[in-house]
């Protein structure tokens, strides 16, 4: 006998929003391969571009050996969801870079880990000047740390592991830029990078 859910007689209309995978990269390649010489699993047109610094593949993850490199990849869309598995090293703040026209203009969705706490930020980078537009600090959940950013018009939201959401509603700089990517610090690893629309 079926349990009475209380929904009998009610027609449920389910609307599904299909996401289109624009970019997907599991960084499966030979150790030491520069991302600029690596072909993502799914791409729209061109591959990774080094905006500054060097990111290579180590153990099938994107890895930075030094500095604060920025890489981006063309997606053809500015309103997107970007996601990656981020493994920090040290207390620097790094992660995703949305709407990244070059090394000095982007929207960075960063995490930093220090003293058992994790801070998630939305940072606007305009002409090389960084401004925090939203932030939250929580107890560090440890690995895995999946960082997600949703860009929709002038709205940017960021979340960690599907929660702890922060938002900024006046993101007008670089609003129509269609390149997205990652920013890292020495020792950081990023895996399972994806860009979907919406």
């Amino acid at each position: 006998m079926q349990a009475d859910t209380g929904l009998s007689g009610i027609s449920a209309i389910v609307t599904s929003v299909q996401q289109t995978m624009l970019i997907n990269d599991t960084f499966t390649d030979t150790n030491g391969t520069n991302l600029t010489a690596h072909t993502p699993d799914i791409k729209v047109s061109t591959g990774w571009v080094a905006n500054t610094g060097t990111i290579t593949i180590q153990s099938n993850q994107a890895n930075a050996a030094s500095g604060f490199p920025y890489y981006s990849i063309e997606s053809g869309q500015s309103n997107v969801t970007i996601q990656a598995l981020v493994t920090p090293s040290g207390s620097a703040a790094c992660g995703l870079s949305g709407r990244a026209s070059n090394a000095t203009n982007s929207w960075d969705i960063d995490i930093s880990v220090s003293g058992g706490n994790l801070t998630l930020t939305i940072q606007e980078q305009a002409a090389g000047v960084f401004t925090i537009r939203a932030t939250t600090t929580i107890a560090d959940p440890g690995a895995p740390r999946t960082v997600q950013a949703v860009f929709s018009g002038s709205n940017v939201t960021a979340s960690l592991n599907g929660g702890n959401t922060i938002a900024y509603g006046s993101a007008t700089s670089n609003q129509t830029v269609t390149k997205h990517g990652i920013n890292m610090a020495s020792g950081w690893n990023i895996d399972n990078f994806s860009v979907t629309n919406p």
Partner: protein
Amino acid sequence: MSTLYQRLRLSSPWAGNGTKATPYHPKFLDDYPATLAAHNITGTPPVGSCQLDADLDQATYNAVMADPNYNTSTQPLGVP
């Protein structure tokens, strides 16, 4: 069980120097490091002040409302 918090819209001076290591941010976040989250930090640093929506636990909320540096520029937004 989630922490009971209040959301407050307030104005704050800017702090930081605009670098990746020390981005511009509301001085309020330095004064109240127990702030749970801050959203919609608007304004152009470093001149003038910024406006933000801050999520605060009840004790921090009470402290801010009693702080003469901020209590004249606050607008309680209730419990989200």
